[in-house]
């Protein structure tokens, strides 16, 4: 297996008084096909880590390799290109666009890769089928349930055909039943060979991941026993 993501002593310091050390010399390698959960309490640096991994934020120091490409040496435009082509985001708040149908929302995946409309449509139809929502393609988000909305968001991330799916509290707005079906969906995607990284503070969600890392006060520790991390 090759590494999709490689962090080498990555730090992120926010310039405030006093400076906030959100990440302290984090080392993390995610192999292709892995299902990883990053857990930690609020304010532990989880979101900062996700932003760095998602190329939404630059680390203050350290090296970040995505698919072997050193993201630190890239221009903003190239980082945007990398983000467009290789990272699929799933957010807690779904971030679907209200006045577009499910299919149109999924078609946003690949929009900024310069993929033409027909190809994006084809990909979107496939992605909706993968999350089991083909029958809802023409529905607007306000007519979908919470679980269906998150599935549409996952389909949008899949339509990117990403190297890694980065999920930020994907079940944070869902009830337990929907959460369970969401986790089954992730299991299925991992089984298909997709690399999935889930950031969560939910015990059940973390347990489903094959590998867990814990972040506390910006420091990452491998294979922390999940039970003890939950307050």
């Amino acid at each position: 297996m090759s590494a999709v993501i490689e962090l080498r002593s990555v730090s992120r310091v926010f310039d405030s008084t006093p400076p906030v050390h959100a990440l302290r010399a984090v080392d993390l390698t995610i192999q292709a096909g892995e299902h990883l959960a990053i857990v930690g309490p609020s304010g532990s640096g989880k979101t900062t880590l996700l932003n760095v991994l998602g190329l939404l934020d630059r680390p203050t120091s350290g090296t970040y390799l995505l698919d072997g490409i050193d993201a630190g040496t890239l221009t903003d435009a190239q980082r945007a290109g990398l983000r467009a082509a290789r990272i699929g985001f799933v957010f807690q708040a779904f971030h679907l666009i209200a006045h577009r149908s499910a299919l149109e929302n999924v078609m946003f995946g690949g929009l900024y890769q310069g993929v033409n409309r027909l190809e994006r449509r084809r990909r979107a139809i496939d992605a909706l089928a993968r999350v089991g929502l083909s029958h809802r393609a023409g529905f607007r988000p306000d007519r979908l349930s919470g679980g269906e909305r998150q599935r549409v968001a996952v389909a949008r991330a899949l339509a990117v055909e990403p190297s890694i799916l980065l999920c930020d509290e994907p079940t944070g707005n869902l009830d337990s039943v929907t959460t369970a079906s969401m986790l089954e969906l992730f299991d299925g995607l991992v089984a298909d060979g997709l690399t999935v990284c889930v950031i969560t503070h939910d015990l059940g969600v973390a347990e489903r991941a094959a590998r867990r890392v814990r972040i506390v006060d910006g420091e990452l520790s491998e294979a922390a026993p999940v039970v003890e991390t939950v307050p």
Partner: protein
Amino acid sequence: MSTPICTPPSRFRLVDAFDEMLAGVFARPTRSMLTTLGTVLGLASLIVTLGLSRTAGSQIIDQFDELRASQVVVTARSSGGQQGSGRLPWEVETRLDRLNGVVASGAIADVANPGPVRTVALVDPSGDYEHVVPVLAASPGLLDALRGRIAAGRWFDQGHIDRADRVAVIGVNLAQELGIRRLDVQPGLFVGDTFFSVIGIADEAVRDRGLLGSVVITSAAAAEVFAVTRPERVVIEVELGAGDVIAAQAPVALAPSAPETLAVAAPSLPQGARDRVAGDVNSLFLLLGLVSLVVGAIGIANVTLVTVIERTSEIGLRRALGARRRHIATQFLGESAAIGLVGGILGASVGVIIVVIVSAVKGWTPVLDTWMPLLAPPAGALVGLLAGAYPAVRAARMEPVDALRGRD
């Protein structure tokens, strides 16, 4: 996995940008339409103002106004028997035709008591062959100055004047009355006791149709036979707009030593007054149009700013999906420009319709420069572009991390 050699920047295809722009505009159709209102009103009032002033300006050039506006008449001022009453010369063409703006000029006088006009020298007791008709003395330029036309034969020239030839041109109505149909038989007529050869028949005299029922003889013959020494009036055809200038110059040219003794009937200028009134109204409406355009721009800026703030999380999402700042700016600029463009199209249409309706009500011919309605849509788009600049910059400056959390 092989390491890619280059990492291409993200792209936003033009056709996709166009799609996104349309989707953005039509996401809230009512709001978009209301946003265009300012631009519509502004551009419509600009077009109505310019179009109506153009239309009204063109109406002055109808036939009646045109005839009056192109005519200057000089007469001798009668000073009630006092010394120094005005004297007009006969040879007006040489004095006036050199003036810039004069098209043609000629002098004319009525011959007083010329006696009956007959075609035969008989004294007919029954009077059947006698006609009392006006007899006019004229200078060679008169025919052109009256916009006259000769149907048959010719008008007289300076040679006839110099020789004081007894020749006459008669109007077509009189020719019918006298039974003169052909000139090749060298017809003639008696005015009083003097014989004149008829050398031409005039069938048109736009400025003085009385000529068509008259006998016109040369000024020189009139002087010799009827002792007509002075023309009564000088008719000058001027170029449009030259009336005022010629009216000032003509008396000096005709009577250099005593120009004040001549009276000038210049084109009365209701046109000038109309233009002044129209000018005031015009600038007011132009100002109003510009003000509503500015208000329209502020409206677009406002709504776009609200839209940007409403769509903060969408902006964050787009950034996460690989959009660069310029892609975000392009999208919002495109949306505001599209709203401005639609406003321009609607404004041009409304403006043209109003010009046509007002023209129809007033019985005018609508006149509109083609470029005006064609320029309105790009002008509207430009207004939208300018108005969208600040909101677009605001949108582009948002940090994706913050935007995804709904903070701008």
